[in-house]
């Protein structure tokens, strides 16, 4: 009995990282967030704008994204076509807005799918441990043995190009990151005394995993998702650019540019400049917002993810 009391009175410590800092108020208000992370808020604003345009695409665009108008082809920017038209005479701005629908839906679905499955895999692997954990590490090494873009291409081609093929293929390449990050958190949480306490009062394994360990991993999971979204956008765009992603005429930011440079002697410049510019701005916004979220959620994550490339 006396020993148990002693265990409870010990300050909570994470193995190897010293005492846990006092829990900060998780709900950093909107105004406080903007004041602390002006750049990250700017990123968020851009993302909100992109999301708004994607959702309201039919309302904000004047043209049909897929209707061919050969008489208007290869127009330069003008009042009627602010960013010009492509080889088939379709308005580039309209296609960028509709492309934003596809590109962001694919990236978000892929990242959420891959990271979520990866997160549960990571928690389970950390909790069960032993041979199971080693085996799962070996399995993931296989996934990490491909350059990510190339693995994505093989999977897309294997499944037959289409929206879901691209979502699943990108999701698969994001999965190991989810496992690795969440497993690391779960491994340290698993050793905390309150988990022993739960075991002692006879909680089932499933209950311990879902009620006691998983909630501790949520911060890392959310941070990971925001940082991976920019990567997913770039992978999706690269696939489109290479001509193995979602096939035209459905517009995506990548395949608009891919069509502009493939089999053409002199590319139509607006078709190269604007889609690429859009991708860059959106990726920048995701990176800024992701960094702010990371710092706001958990400053300790900073050192571990600092400088690590985010994939592609």
């Amino acid at each position: 009995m006396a020993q148990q009391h002693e265990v409870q009175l010990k300050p909570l410590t994470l193995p190897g990282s010293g005492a846990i800092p006092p829990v900060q108020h998780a709900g950093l208000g909107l105004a406080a967030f903007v004041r602390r992370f002006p750049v990250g808020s700017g990123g968020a604003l851009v993302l909100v704008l992109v999301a708004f345009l994607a959702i309201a695409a039919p309302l904000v665009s004047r043209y049909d994204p897929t209707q061919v108008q050969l008489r208007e082809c290869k127009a330069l920017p003008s009042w009627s076509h602010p960013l010009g038209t492509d080889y088939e005479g379709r308005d580039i701005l309209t296609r960028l807005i509709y492309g934003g629908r596809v590109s962001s839906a694919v990236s978000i679905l892929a990242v959420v799918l891959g990271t979520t499955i990866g997160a549960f895999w990571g928690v389970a692997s950390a909790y069960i441990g032993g041979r199971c954990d080693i085996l799962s590490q070996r399995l993931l090494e296989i996934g990490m043995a491909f350059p990510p873009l190339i693995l994505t291409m093989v999977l897309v081609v294997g499944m037959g190009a289409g929206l879901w093929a691209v979502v699943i293929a990108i999701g698969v390449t994001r999965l190991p990151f989810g496992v690795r990050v969440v497993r690391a958190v779960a491994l340290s949480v698993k050793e905390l005394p309150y988990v022993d306490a739960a075991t002692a009062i006879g909680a089932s394994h499933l209950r311990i995993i879902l009620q006691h360990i998983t909630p501790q991993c949520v911060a890392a999971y959310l941070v990971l998702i925001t940082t991976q979204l920019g990567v997913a956008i770039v992978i999706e765009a690269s696939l489109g650019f290479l001509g193995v992603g979602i096939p035209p005429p459905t517009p995506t930011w990548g395949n608009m540019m891919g069509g502009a440079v493939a089999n053409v002697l002199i590319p139509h410049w607006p078709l190269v400049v604007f889609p690429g510019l859009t991708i860059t701005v959106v990726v920048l916004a995701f990176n800024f917002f992701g960094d702010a979220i990371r710092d706001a959620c958990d400053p300790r994550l900073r050192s571990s993810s600092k400088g690590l490339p985010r994939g592609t």
Partner: protein
Amino acid sequence: MAQYILRRVLLSIPALIGVTVVIFVALRVMPGDPVSVMFGTQATKIRPEDRAKIEADLGLSLPLIVQYGKWLQDIASGKLGRSFWRGDTVVDLIVQRGPLTVEIAVMAIILSWVVGVPVGILSALRQNTPLDYVVRFFTVLFLAIPSFWLGAMMVLALLLWRDYAPPLGVINLWDDPMQNLQVVWGPALVLGLAISAYIARMTRSGLLEIIREDYIRTARAKGLREGAVVLKHAFRNASLPIITLSGALFGLLLSGTVVVEQAFNVPGLGKAMVEAFVMLDYAVVQNLVLLYGVVFVVLNLLIDISYAWLDPRIHYT
């Protein structure tokens, strides 16, 4: 040490076998049937007996396990099959087009270190000065710009303003060095800059931590020249995380060559692979993807070994 190397080599064998399984499952087992894709919209017009003949020709009618076994056998004997529409063998393809890709990759790595490390060091030493801000701005920018866009923009700018296009075709370094450099410098520059952004950021953040350590103060206190303090004491320790990072950067590099070759229209291995993907040239796809996987695994193995060799604190377990 020898034991450690042996262990790492043995451990990478299951990963390589896994790579072959993933490729095979992706291309053969998943829905998506090669014959229909080969013929595209015309596929429905193929008569059943013709289809059976084509499948038998491609070895697709054998049981999957047998097909897989045959493929492994082919890899072991160096017969990688031939492209179904090009007519040349995959080995020819690799020999002809590989050198360009290797050249681009090597130049990009050299460039990324030559640019990334000094820039990172300068930025750390002049923390919070205008120079540091400029460096950080460009690092953040280059982390976000997709290399295929930068490449396409360079091609476009040269075309529209200088009326210049790099020579087309496979031109090897040993045949015509000047022409070859014209083909290769663009992709290498774009890729090198993209990677140097990661290296600069890592160098900067690593150095910022180390430069506050006691042993750096000691080195300065005993009157060591600043150059020696930075290069010998600080950078040596800051370089270890950069080497760890190289593993992930090699993935970026290998994916990057594919994209950049497409942007610059350079006929390297990456472009050959993309063409094979678009044409669904299965023999080429599966063997080239395997090649990229093997190269990636071997590079990561070398990094692990060099890391253990550079950092005496690592136990060879």
